Every structure is written in C-alpha cells, then in structure tokens.
C-alpha cells in the first residue's frame, strides 16, 4: 500500500449535458481504470456504470436540455478508484430506488431503472449528497482487487 496513499486526481472535466459526450467519458474511465490496475473486463463495466450515471444526469437531472454542464472527477486513493459527478440539475438520489427484482421486472415488461441497477452491481460504494451550495454529488467507488 505504499504507492497510492494520496488522493490523486487522474482526470477532471466539465461536460456538456449532451449524450454525444458519453463516448468520450467511457473512453476516459476505461483507460484510467486499466492504468490503475483493473482488468479489461472490470474496466469495461466501470465505464458502463459511469455512462449510466452520466446518462441519468443528462436525461433526468437536466431533462435532456443540452445547454448545461456537469463535472466529472476521477481520482484514486489507496486501492480505491473514485468517480465523482457533480451537477446542478434536479436532485435525484439513486439510493432512494428499491433494489430491482429482475424476474419481476421481466414479468411486468417494465422500463427504466436499469441504469441505477447497473451502477449498484458494478461499483462497490455509491453515495449521493446535496452539497451546501446546492449541487448534487454522486460518488462511486470501486476497490482494486
């Protein structure tokens, strides 16, 4: 545990609330995750989880309105790969959604909610809070190994 004991910011950017941006975000997450030591399969899933979280911000927090920005920060600390998304759109706590029962989901041919389900399946910790200056912050953590 000697090499990553400091909080190191690996990537930080303001992202436009447009779905065109998803491709670039996935590429950054996947390559940073691989660089940190995750295998390709896990890195692919982490990029998927972050895609889902960003999609929810673009589609729901900002209702698909492309004229806004949100912030992504990728950092590492010890064995943790941390992705923090900050937006100023409509608040939505993914942890407020009940756990999906996929068997029931299929029986009802339901729609929606799959993104949050993926985030929970892939990431180890998912925390949501509204900051003192009214920004929504989603913090997703994946432990290496």
């Amino acid at each position, binding site marked *: 545990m000697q090499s990553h004991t400091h909080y190191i910011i690996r990537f930080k950017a303001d992202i436009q609330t447009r*779905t*065109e941006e*998803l*491709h670039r975000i*996935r590429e950054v997450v996947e390559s940073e995750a691989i660089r940190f030591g995750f295998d390709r*399969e896990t890195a*692919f*899933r982490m990029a*998927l989880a972050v*895609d*889902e979280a960003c*999609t929810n911000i*673009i*589609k729901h927090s900002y209702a698909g309105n492309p004229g806004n920005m949100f912030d992504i920060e990728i950092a590492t600390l010890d064995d943790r790969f941390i992705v923090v998304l900050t937006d100023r759109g409509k608040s939505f706590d993914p942890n407020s959604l009940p756990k999906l029962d*996929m*068997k029931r989901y*299929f029986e009802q*041919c*339901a*729609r*929606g909610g*799959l*993104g949050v*389900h*993926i985030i929970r*399946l*892939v990431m180890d910790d998912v925390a949501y809070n509204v900051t003192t200056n009214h920004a929504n912050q989603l913090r997703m953590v994946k432990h290496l190994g």
Partner: protein
Amino acid sequence: MSQFSLMVRESPPTQVIDLNGYLDAHTAPQLESAFQDLVNEQRYNIIVNFRDLVYISSAGLGVFMAFIEDVRNNNGDIKLAGMSPKVYNVFDLLGFPMLYEIYEDEQQARQKFIDSHSIG
C-alpha cells in the same frame, strides 16, 4: 464521427437488424425507430444481429424491453444473435438471458423461427 449504424434486411421468414458500433443513450433512438417501423409494418419475426456491436448500455437494453411484449403478443419474437463476450456480459449482468433467446449466430436464430412456424 459515426458511433453507431444499423441496417434492416429481410431474411424470410425474418427481418434482421444488423447493429454496428456503440449503442448508448445517444444512439438508442435509432434502434427504437427501426423497431417501431417493423412493428408498424406488422413484421414480428425479428432477429437482432450483434456481430459488429462493441458496446451496449441500458438505453439499448431498454429498446428491447419496449417492444418485446407487443411483438410476442403478435406471435412473433425478438431473438438476439452474434454477441461478443463483452456485450453478452452486459445482458448477463442484468439477467436478460431469462427473457430473450440468445444465439451464437443469425442462422441459428433464423432456424429457430422456421422450426417454431412449422410446429405451430
């Protein structure tokens, strides 16, 4: 940059949708529109060929959920074929193999349609 494209072609008794590239919230509306056209034309034997698809997110999975009930209520099906291990893993992660038939390749999926028609 073109991240995604699709093509719809006939392979009697089925319609095949060939997917290429990245299927996410940005590109899923194209697939939704292709499905809507097929359903409007009452073509319900649908194979989705994933051979050239490299990525799928829940926005893409949602399109299959949106049409499966309607298609099956009309004695059709949406059968999936030719997925790379990466793409299959996303389906598997969510348990989609419970609801959808997934085949190695398009020919197997097509044969399944032919068999089910000759029986039923």
